[in-house]
Structures are given as structure tokens and as C-alpha cells.
């Protein structure tokens, strides 16, 4: 579904992605973790070309992302993207946030788009907030609407870029539960997160990055029980027991 082949990217002199080789299969749930500045957000943002790559090749759903002939707008419609800061459209209500792209891009009739949006709001537990503006919702609620917005396009892949990092602790659970529910539907998920509980329970594979390099790629059991790379050991120690 997603295939990185020797992908490189630089920000000026900074080598943010260094020879990335990855393959995410259909239906797989992959968690990417690593210290801040490790390149994990950049990695996930290359998948829908929010960040272009400079060397190597990246295939998403069989399409070459650096090929000029690839219709990037059409491909992006197949990839749901959830941001750390939610990025809901503040001038639209919850339901309009969800129906905008299906109506304008998929050309769905308004009524059908609204029915589907209501089903999604139901699924993320926010059916009663359909007419609320983002500013009237809590962080956790906004993020759940953002997930519904992504799902409304019936994407083949959902990408999450630190979806719980901007949330108050008591709201993290509600978002993770929605994501866990998604994983069980067999959708391909790529998640950048520090939520190790989520990685342990939901991920098929954990990828650890630092300095723009993939240092470790393992099953969750393997990664948590026996991390091979010394950077990963240090990272796990700090994130699992920060006081020691």
C-alpha cells in the first residue's frame, strides 16, 4: 500500500529523512515513534506529499508520488490525514466539516453526504454535536470530528500525525478508542504517536526513528521486550518511566 524506496529529504543542510526503506501492507497498522526531531512527522507527511521528497521513490496505492503524471489531488482524496492540531475548518459546523470534501470532490448529493456524516459522527460518539462549531468542542471532540472528516472520503489509508499530543490527558483515551476501532475494520493505518499503550495493543509493527533514519522495525512484543538499538532502549526507558 505504501512503499518507501531509498527515500531522502533535506531541509537546507539538515538531512531529515535518510535512506528510508519501508513497506506498509494493506490492512496493516504501523506505529512510528522516536524522539522529537527524529523525522517521524516528516516521514508521514511525505505520504500525501505535504512534504515532497528529494531522492528515492515513494509509492502510495501503486502510484509513484514523484511522477509528474500522478494526479496528486486525486491520490490525496484516498488518504485520510489527521493532524496534531486537528485543523478543523473553524467557519463550518462539525457536520459541514465532514461533508465538504465528499460533496465538492466526490460529488456526493448533499443528502447522502449528510447521512454518511451522521453515521460517522455516531461512530465517533458525537451525533449530538453535529451543528457545533469547532470552537464549541473540546480538543478530544475536535479530534474525533477530524477523524470522521478523514473517514468521510472512504480513504484507503489513514495517517495520524501525533493525534493525541495536543490533548489534555483525560481526552486521549476517547481518541485512541476511535483509532483502535478503526484498526479492527482492517483499514491501513500509519500512526505517529508516543502512546506506547496504543502501539502495544493495536500495532502490527513498530518503527523507531532517530536522526532521520529508521533504526528499528519490529513487532510490538519484540520492540518493547527486547529493543535492539541503544537509542531505542534509551527512548523506551525515558518514555515509559520518565522519572528514572
Amino acid at each position, binding site marked *: 500500500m505504501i512503499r518507501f524506496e531509498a527515500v531522502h529529504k533535506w531541509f537546507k543542510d539538515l538531512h531529515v529523512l535518510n535512506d528510508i526503506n519501508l513497506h506498509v501492507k494493506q490492512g496493516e497498522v504501523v506505529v512510528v515513534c522516536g524522539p522529537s526531531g527524529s523525522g517521524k512527522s516528516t516521514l508521514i507527511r511525505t505520504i*500525501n506529499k*505535504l512534504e515532497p521528497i528529494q531522492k528515492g521513490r515513494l509509492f502510495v496505492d501503486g502510484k509513484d508520488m514523484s511522477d509528474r503524471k500522478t494526479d496528486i*489531488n*486525486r*491520490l*490525496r*482524496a484516498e*488518504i485520510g*490525514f489527521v*493532524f496534531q*492540531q486537528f*485543523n*478543523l*475548518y*473553524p*467557519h*463550518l459546523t462539525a457536520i459541514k466539516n465532514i461533508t*465538504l*470534501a465528499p460533496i*465538492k*470532490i466526490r460529488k456526493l448529493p448533499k443528502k447522502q453526504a449528510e447521512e454518511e456524516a451522521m453515521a460517522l459522527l455516531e461512530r465517533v460518539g458525537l451525533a449530538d454535536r453535529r451543528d457545533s*462549531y*469547532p*470552537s*464549541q468542542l473540546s480538543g478530544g471532540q475536535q479530534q474525533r470530528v477530524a477523524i470522521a*472528516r478523514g473517514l468521510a*472520503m472512504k480513504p484507503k489509508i489513514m495517517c495520524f500525525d501525533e493525534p493525541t499530543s495536543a490533548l489534555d490527558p483525560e481526552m486521549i483515551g476517547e481518541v485512541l478508542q476511535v483509532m483502535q476501532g478503526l484498526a479492527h475494520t482492517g483499514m491501513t493505518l500509519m500512526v505517529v504517536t508516543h502512546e506506547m499503550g496504543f502501539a502495544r495493543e493495536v500495532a502490527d509493527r513498530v518503527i523507531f526513528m532517530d536522526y532521520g533514519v529508521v533504526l528499528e522495525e519490529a513487532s510490538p512484543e519484540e520492540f518493547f521486550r527486547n529493543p535492539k538499538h541503544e537509542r531505542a532502549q534509551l527512548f523506551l526507558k525515558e518514555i515509559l518511566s520518565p522519572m528514572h
Partner: protein
Amino acid sequence: MFSYQFDWSVVTSGQYFEWLVSGLKITLELSVWSIIFSFLLGLIIAVMRMSNVRPILWFSHAYLEFFRNTPLLVQIFFWYFGSYQILPKAINDWLNSVNFEFAAAVIALTIYTSAFIAEDIRSGVRSIPKEQMEAARSSGFSYLRSMRYIILPQAVRLTIPPLINQFLNVTKNSSLAMTIGVAEITYQARQVESYTFKGFESFTAATLVYLGLSLVIAGLMTLYNRRVLSPMMGGK
């Protein structure tokens, strides 16, 4: 020493009153058309100004500098007297058949004002977080459609206060149209003065008309902002 006899009936009834009312109508028409067209043109120029296609960028930049930095009166004369010599005869004939003075005034006001509106909208767009564009692009919207459905609706809301200013300016600037013979309110007030020598009364009437119009426009936009737009943006 104060021997002037005020005669307000000159401007409140009879033929001269009718002149003023017809002037008010023309001023309203001039203002409304110029506001609508300059807003639409301003939107287009603002988007062009943010394009990364070089020729479009240069064109819009030149457009802004040219029309912002030359006097409106000169522009009105240019469209009225100047364009006549360079336009094809067919277009001139057509323009003459449809009240060329009025058309030239609307064109001049529209183009002049659109340059200012474009800059206001552009600064509104710049204050929208770049993440909004990212979210729109990730859903599969092209750059232009992201602008249309996500960025501009938010930017225009933020631009309401400076837009009120521009719309008030259009209304007041429309008085310059009298110089090419558009019979708007200032023109009519001048006429009344010429016929009656009641300059104080006639121009007081014109002043009150502009003041009233401006207050109505500002009031309507503030009301719209408060009732419709602010709640959407999380305000009160």
C-alpha cells in the same frame, strides 16, 4: 451681518427635491455596482497576488501599484476621455447607447477600489494559519478550490472591518463621477445651487445623504458581522 435667509423648502419639496432624489438613486446605483464588482475583482486580484506563477504575480503586482498610486479623478478621466480613442468603434457605439458616463464611472471606481480590497483580503488570507491550507489540500482540494471553500471564506470574515472602510470610500468617491456628467447626488446638489443660489441648503442635503448612506452601510456590515460571521469564528 447674518442676513442670509435659510429656505429649506428648496431641498425638501418640489422640483429640486426630485432632482436630489434622482441624484440619490444614481449615487446608490453607482455605489452598489462598484462595491459588488470591486469586491469580486479584489478577490481575484488577491488570489493572483498569492500565486506562484511568475507572470500572474507580476501582473497583479503591477496592477496594484498602478491603480493604488494614481488619483481616482485621473483614472475616471482616463476611462471616460482616454479609452474612447483606443477602443474599437463597435464598442464605443455600444457604450454610447448604454450611458457611457455611468459605465466609465463604475469601471474607474471598481478598478481603483479593487486594488485596495485585494490588499485587505491578502492580509486576511495571511492571517489564516497555514495548517488550514494543509488540511484542505490533504482532503484532495486543489490550491484554487482550497482558497475558494476554506481559506477565502475565513479570510473575508477577518477582513470585514477594512472592507467596511473600502465600501464607505466607494460611496464617497462616487461623487467624483459628477466631473464626467453622471447626475449623481453631488451633481444634482450643484445643479440646485446653480438654479437657486441656495448653496448651503443644497450641499447640506448632499452631505446628509452621504452621511446617511455611510452609516447604513457600516451598520449593515457590523450587524452582519455580529449576527452571522462572529459566531462561526468562535466570537460572541
